């Protein structure tokens, strides 16, 4: 049996999601966290495209995908700017140093 393109895309998306979540759970370096967040968002874009190809509404899914990419770029830029500030203030990029919100 051959898998449809949508199934392949969906499986790839799920795989990327798993990689991204695993990365988020274990990463302590802020730059790495930004990178795995990118991986997670790419999983979401793949899922959007898969959904578009399954439902036949390619145009809608592509426009949503482009929107996600734009929004995600902004997120990445801000996150990296924050990482720079963290490095300046704390002298490290380790998230364990950022525990001032501890209850």
């Amino acid at each position, binding site marked *: 049996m051959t898998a449809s393109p949508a199934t392949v895309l969906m499986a790839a998306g799920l795989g990327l999601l798993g990689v991204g*979540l695993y990365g988020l759970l274990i990463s302590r370096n802020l730059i790495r966290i930004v990178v795995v967040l990118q991986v997670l968002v790419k999983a979401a874009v793949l899922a959007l495209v898969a959904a578009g190809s399954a439902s036949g509404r390619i145009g809608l899914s592509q426009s949503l995908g482009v929107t996600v990419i734009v929004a995600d770029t902004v997120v990445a830029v801000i996150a990296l700017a924050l990482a720079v500030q963290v490095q300046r203030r704390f002298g490290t990029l380790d*998230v364990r140093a950022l525990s001032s919100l501890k209850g």
Partner: protein
Amino acid sequence: MAGWLIALTIGLPWVGALAVLAAGDRRPRAQHALAVGSATAAAAVSLALLRLGSADVAVRIGAGGVFGEFTFVPDGLGVFLAAIAAVVGGLSVLFSVDYMRGEPQLGRYYALVLMFIGAMAGLVLTGSLLLLFLFWEMVAFCSYALIAFHNDDPKAVAGGIKALIITQIGGLGLLAGVVVIYAHHGTTDIATFLTHAGNLPNGMLTLTAYGFLMAAAAKSAQVPFHTWLPDAMEAPTPVSALIHAATMVNAGVYLLARFYPAFAGVPGWTDVVVAVGVASALLAALMALAATDLKRLLAYSTISQLGYMVYAVGAGAVFASQFHLLSHAVYKALLFLGAGAVIHAVGTRDVRQMGGLGTQMPFVGTVFFLGAGALVGVPVLNGFWSKELILETGINNGSWLPVIVLLATSGLTACYAVRVVWLVFFGHATAFRRAYDAPAAMRISLGVLAAGTVSSWLLAGSLGRSLATTLPFHHLEARSLGDIVTEVITAPPTAAALAVTALGLLAWWRRDRLARAGRFARVAALVIENGSEWINTQVVRAAVRAAAAAGATQTGLLNWNMVGIVAGLLALLGIAAMGTLR
């Protein structure tokens, strides 16, 4: 047209709130002007809206079809309560110009008050249960933040937290009811629910009815949730007048009145509502008799008068309850603002330290006297007509016992009202030689409210007609002002109430001889009061402790937060999977 007016009534104060914040605390004159301007404009719009009452949806916002549509309906109940919120709100803001002059952080103060006015108007105008809940929580937040406005005062902060926690516990009842209704009807539209309330399974309807009652009792400070209101008196006085006397505490009565047609058939519901109202009216009147703090005394009197309104809804007298709500909003706002002028002038809230202020503050003394007269139910003032109408309708619809208790309560009301007027404005003049009469902005607010106290009962006929024509589920009967006046004058309870009121006044006159009875009543009230105070305090403490314990989950480590997010995602996926497997 009505849609635009609704949007303006809610939106103008909110825009004003942002503008006041944007003006910044370095420009207090601009802040005063912006706040008064936007609040007055909202009041004018809300008065224009009064003429456009109808049962049709005026604003409809599609919300992606998930929670149904967000609607706003300008029916009689909604436009009338929105007008009270906006008009009393406008007057309180105007009063604040003098009262809050020179205070730091005016921006925060005005922004919260204006946000409250808009949210209160939204609460009564919306036709969607979900929005109702959101506005309900929004006014609770504003109330909390304004009680704790002087956030360097531990009493103010504690009062705010207590008010927040107790009204939130009540709010859970409202949320539970809304969720049940949404689960069964697939919509949060209030009209749909009122049409098909009978379709809910019996247990679910009972749960909803009592959940709503719990929310209403907590919001309207009724027994056993009432202890937050006296502690809320740490708020600046215009806030007490607006939120804790004239508007937000009415939200509970509004909720009961709005959903009365759906819940009236639930076994025991109306009896419990009557019991809650009567118990609150009596107990709070006793407490008011013993109170020595001017604002706490007025707070107890508010609980007592709200008890009358809750009782009226339980007895099926929805119109009488709303009529009394109008009268009470006007004269209690007058009393609170009058008290504010006194407190502002003498710098204490303890009535034992006041006295003889009548000669120094003739204007405030006169309007306060008028307000107290309306509270007591002196004929021709607005409180007289509405209170007697409640007693009269209550006798026609229900049993005698609650009415007798409420009659006795009006005697107590007379007694504590004359006590406070005597202690503050008569008696020996005390050390406050420099007490000054109210400045101009205060005088305008007080004057308008005093005029309302004398004349607002003339609106009874049009209020009744508006309610009767735009509330299809309540089956109200429109009566003209003449009919209502004749009914009140000829009804036997009126004579009885006047006699009891006179007795109450006499009791104050002869207070030395009645000292023992008075002491007994105070002790009884204090025992009951401290009992519920103890329970309320324990609940608040437990909530604060639980919150502190929950702080342990905040490790401050990003990776642990991610574990939480992933676990939540898995749980959601699991729930979704269960839904597809079924």
